């Protein structure tokens, strides 16, 4: 597995992002042990210190908690917190860009909404 090398988001943030998605899609459940920095380093072919930084980024946001000697675990309600955070930060930002672009292209609100409704996402497994 490789992280996106062209993406200029710092690697540790890409790691944190990937972990968030794992929690969001249910691959990692509440109170379940998450990957160690070494496992992550091996999975993504990155320096273990970078992977550790990704983990601590999530721990700082109380999405993960540490059990001494055992490693990091998914915090209860982590999924909800991530969802709320991403709506507030990512989605809002995306919508802002979306609306701005629609405005530049002189698209009406109704046309934009119709476009959104017509989007057919491929089914996720």
């Amino acid at each position, binding site marked *: 597995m490789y992280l996106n*090398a062209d993406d*200029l988001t*710092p*690697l*540790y943030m890409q790691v944190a992002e990937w972990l968030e998605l794992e929690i969001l899609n249910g691959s990692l459940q509440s109170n379940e042990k998450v990957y160690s920095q070494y496992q992550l*380093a091996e999975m993504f*072919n*990155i320096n273990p*210190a*970078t992977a550790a930084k990704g983990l601590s980024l999530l721990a700082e946001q109380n999405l993960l908690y540490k059990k001494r000697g055992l490693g990091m675990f998914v915090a209860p309600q982590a999924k909800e917190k991530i969802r709320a955070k991403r709506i507030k930060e990512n989605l809002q930002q995306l919508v802002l860009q979306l609306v701005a672009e629609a405005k530049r292209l002189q698209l009406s609100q109704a046309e934009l909404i119709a476009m959104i409704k017509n989007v057919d996402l491929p089914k996720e497994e």
Partner: protein
Amino acid sequence: MKNVECNRLTKKYGSIYAVNDLTFSIPENSITGLIGRNGAGKTTLLKMLAGFLLPSGGTVRILGQNPFNNLQVAANLIFIDDELALPENMNLGEILDTAATFYENWQPDIAYGLLDYFSLDLRSYYQQLSKGMKSTFNVILGIAARCPITIFDEPTVGMDAAVRKDFYRALLKDYLQQPRTIILSSHLLGEIEDLLDSILLIDAGKKCLHLSMDELRSYAVGLSGNSKLLHELVKEEDIIFRQQLGKDKIYLVVRNRKIDFSAARFKGLEIGPVPANDLCVYLTAKHKGGIDDVFKHS
């Protein structure tokens, strides 16, 4: 503990400084990329770290000791470059067996496993290998020796892309199993940056930067837009790289300090990160405009 310490380290050949007043230290269990252009002094620096060359000034400390002519340092350090002088009459298997007698942490399984993986025959002779295969064999020695200080000087010379990728992966996996202090020199940062804790960038024998990879990523930003507006916003001394994009549009790479980003965005300037490799190239370039400067007046 600092495993590698250099203080005002200097190496002079005649009147030319190959390494000029370098001061830095590297902590144990980390991977450091030594980056610089050809002739920047990378090899000279590394050979002083390995105790092969005598400094003209300043000090080197490896594991707290002077490495020159030091058996204890030598027992804990391996230096791999692209021209190992190995005996013509010993085959690869015999060389591996010899290496095993010298290094306490030698991993025969990893050595033989890698040799097999890279399709190197135990019975072939080093001098008959192609350039890329020699490099491959060299890095196998470097990995399997598991020395607390492991130095690779341009280890991937002649390797094809697939082998290079495998080598970096092998190095990382072995590092995860047995963390140690690794220094990896290269003139290209792109391939190795994911592996690194930090980068030491040198230019003309002098230290340019010594930063963690994260610090490096936020060290500079790329700005593009109206050249007049941009020049009002940033100070001349902060400009690292300048490229004319259109009649009055310009792309600047600038030091990331005291820049009012919201004001910049407001004025319609585009702000973006700078790839680490590009940044290193810009920082070690003689001209702020790169190769374009040469053709400017013609």
